[in-house]
């Protein structure tokens, strides 16, 4: 290429490349020799790199490289490393006395952070990502608990679940479907009485009838004043919180057909962590 071009720049006496941009020409000065050596070095380096590391794309994946390096393996080692770092905490948590967990700040933090993740993966489908529940699925943020809100009961409830067939130790209770026992009018009267318990608007005449029916049929589990019984998972009817709804229609439905909320048993793995998380959501006792 160079020998065809004999354009010499007047000022410097150096040959130009012959390229001309609006009258500006490029001098063809020689490059420094060390630059050339660096260039060769990068080629050698490149060849070495291709041999040592994954490089050429193949149909499935790429050439592995002599060093056997893989980003996936690196991530796996990193995860394993952190698991190892947390091993002590995990063992400590599994064996921890949950009632005094708060005394060990590190353990508590580890439990709550881990529990939050486990909760989002396993519990949020029913209880909601904010743990505020949904119709039929208890809100875990408030101070109303069906089976108890102290840490040990929470652990128990999660471990064995509620009204399931899988775990013989699951919390169990069943409210009769009063549609088969009481007349429709009687149920309407009961509804009015139940509403009166929690301070909602009610029909005084019907409620008076309902009060007697309540004592006869309901007070065994829900208590004479409707405060409920955690031993049996019988809800408190005198508070402002309703699992299925406190309006007359829903109440009628509940009494007529009963309710049967089920939670599966979650075994033992990470239960302490989830319990610690749930317990510190604002309602723990």
């Amino acid at each position, binding site marked *: 290429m160079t020998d065809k071009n004999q354009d010499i720049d007047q000022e410097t006496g*150096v040959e130009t490349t012959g390229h001309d941009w609006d009258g500006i020409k490029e001098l063809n000065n020689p490059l420094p*020799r*060390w*630059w050339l050596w660096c260039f060769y070095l990068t080629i050698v380096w490149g060849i070495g790199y291709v041999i040592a590391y994954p490089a050429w794309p193949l149909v499935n994946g790429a050439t592995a490289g002599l060093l056997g390096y893989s980003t996936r393996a690196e991530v796996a080692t990193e995860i394993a490393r952190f698991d190892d770092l947390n091993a002590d905490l995990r063992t400590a948590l599994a064996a921890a006395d949950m009632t005094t967990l708060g005394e060990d700040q590190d353990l508590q933090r580890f439990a709550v952070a881990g529990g939050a993740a486990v909760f989002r993966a396993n519990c949020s489908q029913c209880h909601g990502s904010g743990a505020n529940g949904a119709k039929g699925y208890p809100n875990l943020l*408030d*101070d*109303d608990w069906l089976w108890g809100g102290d840490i040990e009961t929470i652990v128990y409830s999660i471990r064995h679940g509620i009204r399931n067939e899988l775990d013989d130790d699951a919390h169990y209770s069943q409210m009769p479907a009063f549609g088969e026992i009481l007349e429709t009018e009687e149920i309407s009267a009961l509804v009015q009485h139940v509403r009166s318990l929690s*301070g909602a608007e009610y029909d005084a005449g019907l409620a008076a009838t309902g009060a007697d029916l309540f004592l006869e049929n309901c007070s065994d589990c829900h208590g004479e004043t409707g405060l409920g019984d955690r031993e049996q998972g019988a809800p408190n009817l005198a508070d*402002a919180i309703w699992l299925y709804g406190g309006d007359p229609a829903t109440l009628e439905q509940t009494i007529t057909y009963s309710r049967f909320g089920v939670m599966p048993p979650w075994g033992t793995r990470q239960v302490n962590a989830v319990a610690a998380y749930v317990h510190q959501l*604002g309602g723990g006792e």
Partner: protein
Amino acid sequence: MNTPDTPPLFAAQEPIFPRRVTGAFRRFKWWIMAVTLGIYYLTPWIRWDRGPSLPDQAVLVDMANRRFYFFWIEIWPHEFYFVAGLLIMAGLGLFLFTSALGRVWCGYACPQTVWTDLFILVERWIEGDRNARVRLWKTKWDFRKWRLRLTKWLVWLLIAVSTGGAWVFYFTDAPRLAVELVTFTAHPVAYSTIAILTATTFLFGGFMREQVCIYMCPWPRIQGAMMDDDTLTVAYRDWRGEPRAKKRVEDTGDCIDCMACVNVCPMGIDIRDGQQMECITCALCIDACDDVMDKIGKPRGLIDYLALADEPAERAGDPPRPIWKHALRPRTVLYTALWSMIGFGLVFALFIRADIDLTVEPVRNPQFITMSDGSVRNTYNIRLRNKHGEARDFRISLTSESILRIRQEGSASNILTVPPDSTTQHRVYVIARPQDEAAHTERTGLRFWIEDTKNGERAHRDSLFNGKAN
């Protein structure tokens, strides 16, 4: 491949043997070298007390804990804009100096120039001045040459090691690291950093020198865009010096062609060929030439700081315009204005930085919940930052037009404790009883107050309370 009249594609580096020179600019450059190197080597050793749990190193870039300490200033990652601002100021400062004085940065302050200067100084001490060095370069590799070369390389290496060594002290407690380094217990990263910086210092200061400036550094390419006809650069008054002649006859110019300016040039160029790419405006040729002019009884300034704009006037015999007229022009005024604007902005931002850093994040999943007694509860995540060296207790309270109560998760008190040098998150609940208005109002404004229990400093944040809107 090369025919006789085509230049080679690649050329070997031309050896350069800068001669010793004395004069005002050289003295000035020695001072700059002493001050910059002094700052570089000594800064990590300055101590600054910040309380028990913070480091006492005045300037420290603490990567692991993500803190930057500069005397009384402490910068957290979320304040990185200070660093960005400083970098922008550095950039604009370079623009300003380049447009006014050409490549002053290159000539006086660039580490490449300063360290090369230092390396040349060592070279001169060991191998002698220019002529001795040229002779040594030409002789065969006998015992004396080996001895001189090895001594020189050894001293260079020592400088290079201490250069790399000083760098790592900026990133961790210097005295402790120094002990670790000599007992071989320091982190491998410290050693590899020192090794890399040693290698680059040794290579760039000892061997690459002008090659770095000509071929590797991007800055000269950018500088070209900042210079104009009024920029002062080192130049040769050829109308005064030409025709040059070794022998003084009538009609000859002031240049006696003694090559002093060429011999002192660290870039190995002849400034009499005009302003050129290689020149870093180190001004050593000015010193060299002034010396010669003094000797032959001619006025100084045959080589001088000149602006291109003055050339026609000077050729016509008029004096050059005063320096301030060149320095003061829209471009430099603009750079100065921008530079100081950012500077003032940063200082201002530094002074209005709140000592208490408080953020309130209302939890909106769910917006509110009903408690068994019918009261309505909202949840807020409060984030508090404590930059002090000791733990701080903050009392939290709230003000609102409606009646609201506040409670902290996991504690009966309203004191939030933040350990030293850390950020903590606290969950607080705000509760409206059923009979309170806020319980039934869709939104109620409220203001959280945080007060340091010790010194009474306060901060507040506004937020909203969600009630049950019927």
